Structures are given as structure tokens and as C-alpha cells.
């Protein structure tokens, strides 16, 4: 047996022995374990699974041992993930630190920063949040204004971050800040990390049209951040931000794989709510619903096709660029049709007279608005396709049109 086969064999045996059966089922929102200073566990099995993986150093299997990882090579790491997928193991914890900041620290952090920040991250002891967007810096992230002024051995941070997921529940934040307001906007940005318990930090949850949300606005009032918490070069934060966003896309797709399918079968609901259409209006509605379901099928086939193209070695950048746009726009269209189909049944807020599915569809509809905005609004996606995929020219600056 080769070394890698031996590793697969041992890994499989270890997972079989250490991953409780209840941790091998699809997970709902309430089942997520967040690594944190004081983690909470939805069940005793979840705690056991968390601790077993932590002690095995498999939260970050491919990180060097010196920084709390298991030091696995790429091949071994792939085998581990493969075996976890095969057994349908839940992720033992979810942590933005591990998924996003960690890899950037490994690449750009100083030796001291790596030794300070990575091992606790790798043990799931710190819950991290991300401070990127600001009230006046959404799609145009580089125009961010939260300032970090020089205070000698520390920075003085003033301003506000918005759309920070779980800002009120996190221990630390990595944030993009403006360290030089006098230079072109991409050249005056730095990446810092800060303790959310620092004096002057205040995280306020944001209610959305769909109700309570994980999003917060975080306010910073003369917050002192030690100078050694600057990651990478001063005013060199934009490059790191781009790298972080790459990791974000990867993390989002991993997260998509493990989260419960929120799939609503549109045609089944046509059957339920419009079994025998009468009149022109109902026939037209049915045709709209069917068209929506057909487009959804096309998207599903495109996901499959993209995977096969990648396997065949074809360039898939043109397909990759459409995925977020298509999925979120289709979801919104679908909820729109569902509302028409279900009428009053899809407009309940909270009451026993509505079924769980009906209420979920109402909230899903309201939530679908956020999907076409967050993570690159549809208009930004269209810009990216036009310029990078189709090669259409940039608008000439300053030309009267």
C-alpha cells in the first residue's frame, strides 16, 4: 500500500471512529458551530466532533505545524476532504479566520503575527468577522473612508463598517482602513486586525426587510489599535483585500455545498396552488411559472456542464462569471412568481394560520433582494462579463456622451 493509500485508509478509520453519526447528516442554520472564545454547541455530539478535530489539528490540516496546523501536503489534504465528503461529515466549525484571514496571514503576515494569531485560530478559539463595506463604500469598495491615523505606537481608528456578519458575536475583526487620504484611493488602504472588545467599538445588529439578520453596523470611535496589528505593508492593503475576496468566493462555494438546500420545487407548487388554471390570467401565470422552472433547469445543467468542462481542461472563466448573477436573479424571479401563485398565502408574517413552508417562502422572497446586491451586485456582475469575458472597451473618461 502506498503512503497516500495508507493515509486514506487511516483517515477513513479515524473519521469513522470519531465523527458521531449525528454529525453526518445535512445541517440547518441552528446546527452551525462557530469557533469562538466561548463557543456554544447545539449538541454534545457537536462538541465531541469539534474537540476531536481540533485535537487532531484538522481545522487547518494544510497549515504548518508551527502555526497550529497538521502540516499535511496538498495530496493528503485533498484525501481528507474527500473522505469527509464521502462520509458526509459536517464541518466541525465555521470560522472566517480559518477560511479567509488565515491564508492571507500565511502569505503576508510577519513571523510574530503568524505565531500570535494563527494557533488560536487553528484551535477554533477566536471568532472572526470581516470589516470591508462601509455605508458609503458598497460596490465601490476602494472608496472606503474609515480612517486609521498614526498615533505613534498605535493607530487611532474612526468611522464605521456595515454588513458585518455577526459583528456583535465576534471576538476579532480584520478590517480595511484608510491610512492615507491624500493618494489615489487604491493606494491609501491598509489591512489591520483588532479586538472587538476594544474601547470605542460598538456593533449594532441591522434588521432587514426579511426580519432579524446576522448583519451589523459597527461603529468605531477613536479606537486604539496597536501598530503591530497592521498586516502587510502600510498602504498596501488593496492587494491583500483582493486576495481575501478570492478566498471569500472559495469559502462561499464551500459553504453552499454544506448548507441545507433551501430548494423550493416551483412546479410542485404550481400543482398545489394552481392545479386547474381558469381564464387567461391563470394560464398566463402558469406559463410564467413554467418558464421560470425551465430557466432554473438550464442553470442546473450549466453547473453540471461547467464541472465537466473544467474536467476536460476547457476554459471555464466565461461560465464562472455568470453563475452568481444567474442564480440570484433566477431566485428572485422565482419568488416573484411564487408570490403571485400563492397570493395571500405568501404574505403572512408570523401566525399559525400560515404553514412553515408558506412563511419560509415569504421570508425567502424578502431575502432574495439581498442576494442580487451582496457579494457583487448584479450590475457589477454584468460589468465584469462585458469587460473581462466579452472584451468590450472601457468608457472613455471625460468624453461627453
Amino acid at each position, binding site marked *: 500500500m502506498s503512503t497516500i493509500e495508507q493515509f486514506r485508509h487511516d483517515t477513513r478509520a479515524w473519521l469513522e471512529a470519531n465523527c458521531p453519526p449525528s454529525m453526518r447528516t445535512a445541517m440547518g442554520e441552528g446546527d452551525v458551530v462557530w469557533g469562538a472564545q466561548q463557543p456554544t454547541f447545539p449538541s454534545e455530539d457537536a462538541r465531541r466532533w469539534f474537540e476531536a478535530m481540533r485535537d487532531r489539528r484538522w481545522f487547518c490540516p494544510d497549515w504548518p505545524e508551527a502555526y497550529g496546523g497538521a502540516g499535511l501536503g496538498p495530496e493528503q489534504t485533498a484525501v481528507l476532504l474527500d473522505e469527509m465528503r464521502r462520509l458526509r461529515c459536517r464541518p466541525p466549525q465555521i470560522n472566517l479566520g480559518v477560511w479567509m484571514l488565515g491564508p492571507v496571514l500565511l502569505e503576508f503576515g510577519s513571523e510574530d503575527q503568524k505565531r500570535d494569531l494563527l494557533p488560536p485560530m487553528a484551535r477554533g478559539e477566536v471568532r472572526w468577522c470581516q470589516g470591508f463595506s462601509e455605508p458609503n463604500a458598497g460596490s465601490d469598495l476602494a472608496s472606503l473612508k474609515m480612517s486609521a491615523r498614526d498615533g505613534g505606537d498605535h493607530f487611532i481608528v474612526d468611522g464605521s463598517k456595515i454588513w458585518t456578519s455577526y459583528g456583535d458575536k465576534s471576538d476579532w475583526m480584520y478590517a480595511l482602513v484608510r491610512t492615507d487620504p491624500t493618494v489615489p484611493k487604491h493606494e491609501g488602504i491598509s489591512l489591520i486586525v483588532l479586538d472587538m472588545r476594544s474601547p470605542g467599538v460598538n456593533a449594532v445588529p441591522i434588521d432587514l426587510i426579511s426580519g432579524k439578520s446576522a448583519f451589523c453596523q459597527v461603529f468605531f470611535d477613536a479606537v486604539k489599535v496597536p501598530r503591530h496589528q497592521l498586516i502587510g505593508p502600510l498602504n498596501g492593503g488593496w492587494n491583500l483585500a483582493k486576495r481575501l475576496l478570492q478566498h471569500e468566493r472559495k469559502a462561499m462555494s464551500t459553504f453552499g455545498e454544506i448548507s441545507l438546500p433551501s430548494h423550493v420545487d416551483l412546479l410542485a407548487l404550481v400543482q398545489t396552488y394552481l392545479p386547474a388554471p381558469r381564464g387567461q390570467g391563470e394560464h398566463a401565470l402558469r*406559463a410564467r411559472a413554467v*418558464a421560470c422552472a*425551465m430557466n432554473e433547469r*438550464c442553470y442546473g445543467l450549466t453547473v453540471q*456542464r461547467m464541472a465537466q468542462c473544467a474536467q476536460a481542461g476547457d476554459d471555464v472563466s466565461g461560465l464562472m462569471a455568470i453563475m452568481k448573477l444567474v442564480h440570484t436573479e433566477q431566485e428572485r424571479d422565482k419568488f416573484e412568481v411564487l408570490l403571485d401563485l400563492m397570493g395571500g398565502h405568501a404574505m403572512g408574517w408570523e401566525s399559525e394560520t400560515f404553514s412553515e413552508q408558506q412563511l419560509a417562502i415569504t421570508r425567502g422572497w424578502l431575502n432574495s433582494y439581498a442576494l442580487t446586491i451582496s457579494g457583487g451586485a448584479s450590475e457589477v456582475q*454584468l460589468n465584469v*462579463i462585458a469587460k473581462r*469575458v*466579452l472584451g468590450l472597451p472601457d*468608457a472613455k473618461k471625460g468624453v461627453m456622451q
Partner: protein
Amino acid sequence: MNLVYSDEQRLLADSARDFLAARSPVAAQRRLRDEASIQGYDPDVWRDAVALGWSAIPFPEQFGGLDFGCMGLGPVFEAIGRNLSATPLLSSVVVSGSLLHLCGTPAQQEQWLVPSISGERRLALALDEHARHDPRGTALLAQADGDGYCLQGNKYWVLDGVGADAYVVAARVSGQAGDAQGIGLFLLPADTPGLSCSRLPLIDARNCARLHLEQVRVGPQALLGQPGQGWTGLDLALDRGRACLAAELLGAAEHLFETTLEYLKTRVQFDTPIGSFQALQHRCAQLHVDLALSRSAVMAALAALDDNNLDASSRGRLVSLAKWKAGDTALKVSNEAVQMHGGIGVTDELDVGLYLKRIRVAQASLGDRDFQCQRYADLTLACA
């Protein structure tokens, strides 16, 4: 389900593109139109396409076929769409040939399928009776007459009808228009007494015809398959035709989109290429999305037709999905292509108009987007 072409199919795609670009480019199609060709295609091109093996692609070796499947037809029809080439491949081979293959007796196959594959004879399907495609609605009566039948009525939109050596005519043997049961398929040589074929010149300048049947008396040997049991074979043969048309629409739309993008990058107004305007960029990006979705659906339909384990309704759903999406997308692309080219877009000099017209006809052939949407729903909701 395989949604990408194999290496072999990619080679075929390259050779089909090269052949048609050299022998049957858009300019050739324009010439056929200007010369008011009645046959609607160049017989020399067709002979050479047959020599390349195109007509043999979907059939088993016993009939002289290559057994290359519908996935093998896809690249050819994409290339046909790109060049707007006119050949009787769809009418004579894919649709009528499939009917012979699926429903014919060995004698009928020997007499008509083998020469249709070898290009010596040409077949055409006479199915539609109304403005819009509705195969179940077949009403043209085949009345029992002694041990045979007497057929009376009209068939419209017969593709490559003028000059065909024989017609496959769908007629009602029993039941009523709207029933799948009771449709019979009759193989009628062009010289059958009572048959007359006349031109129906359409916007795409191809060979489209009306077939009139005046007291056409035929013996039982004219039947393809059992009397009144033609639906299963017809449904499958039409699905092959629809998938190939979807591939053709995809090819035409992709090519038209590429040329439109080129135009947007080079046409200067207000001192800047008009492709720099966001109003146009977003519309182009949307078309790119629709083309990508169309390709996925087309590949799935071609693969479904080659999958013998798939039931008829799953196959039909995927085929209708492809024809619906590719047709809808091609219409959008052609409309946008005219608009984005501006004034020159409505001139006959530019090829855009030829694409617009061919796409319009192909979109309506064998079921337009509304037909496919309805069929998808019927096939899905019926088994829910």
C-alpha cells in the same frame, strides 16, 4: 449525462465548420436566394456533405450508418447554423430517415432509408396543417378504403418539400384531432396520383412547400408501422429534429452575437467605440448568459436522445427545454443584433437580416417557444 463534446465530436465540429465555411458560407445562401432557387440548396454541397458521412451519423451500421448518435449531429447542425447553410439533412435524414428507421419494415428501409442515407433519394415530412406546430392536432383524414386508405386534405410548411422523392404524411386513421392515438404514418412516393406540391416561399428563402392530397388512394403497404400507432415513432423523430434545430439555432445565435460584438468594438460614435456604453454592455452580458444557458440545454437534449435508458417523457422534457431556450435566445440575439447595428442593421446588404429571418423560421419549426414551454409543463406536471 455528458454535456461536453468528446474529442471525436470536436474533430467533427472542426471539419464541419471548415467544409461549410468553404463550400456553403452565408454568401452562398444569399446567392441561392437571389437566384430564386426552388430546391433551396446546392446539390453539389449536399453530395459532398453525404460523402463526408453527415447523413450516416445517427443510423446503425446495417443501413450504412456510422452510429455516431445525436451528439454527433450536434456539431454539424451548429456549423450549419453558423453559416446558414441549406441542406436537406434535417428534413430527409434526421426526421424522415428516423421515421423509416423507427417504424419501417425491412423492405421499406431497404427501399427508402438506405438511399436517403446515401443521398440518392430525398424524403420530406408532411405534418403541420395549421399556422402553428401541433402534431397531436393532426386531422387530415385517412379513411379506410377497401384494404387500404384514401387521404384527403392539405399539409403546410413541408420543409424541402419541392422535389422530394417521397413524403411521410401523418394522417388521422382513428380518434380525433388532439389525440396522440389514431395517427398513422404513410409513405407516399412523389408520383402517387392525387399528390401535388407547391412552393411556399418563406423569409428564409429555403425550400418550403404545401402538399395537397386529393383523394389519394393507397394500399396498406404505404403505412409506416401499425395503423393509428404512429405517435411513439413520430414523437421521437420530431424530438431528434427539434434537438438538431436547437443546435442550429445555437450556432446561428453564437455567430451573430460574435459579429455584433466585433461591430460594437469597432463602430465609433461620440468619439468612442459604442461598445464602451454601459447601456449596450449590459444587454450584451445578458445575451452571453442566455447563450451559455442555451448551450447547456442543447447538450443535455442531444445526450438525452442518445441515452436509451431514458423514458420518453424525460427525453421530451430536455428536448423541449433546449428548443425553448435556444429559440428564445436566438430571437433575442437577432433582435438585438439588428438594433445594435443601427441603420445598417435593417439593410439587405448586411448578413444580420439573413440570420434574423432564418432564426425566425427555425424557431417556429417543429414547435416554437410557447409550444415547447407548454409541452415541458405537460410532461412534467403529468408525472408529478
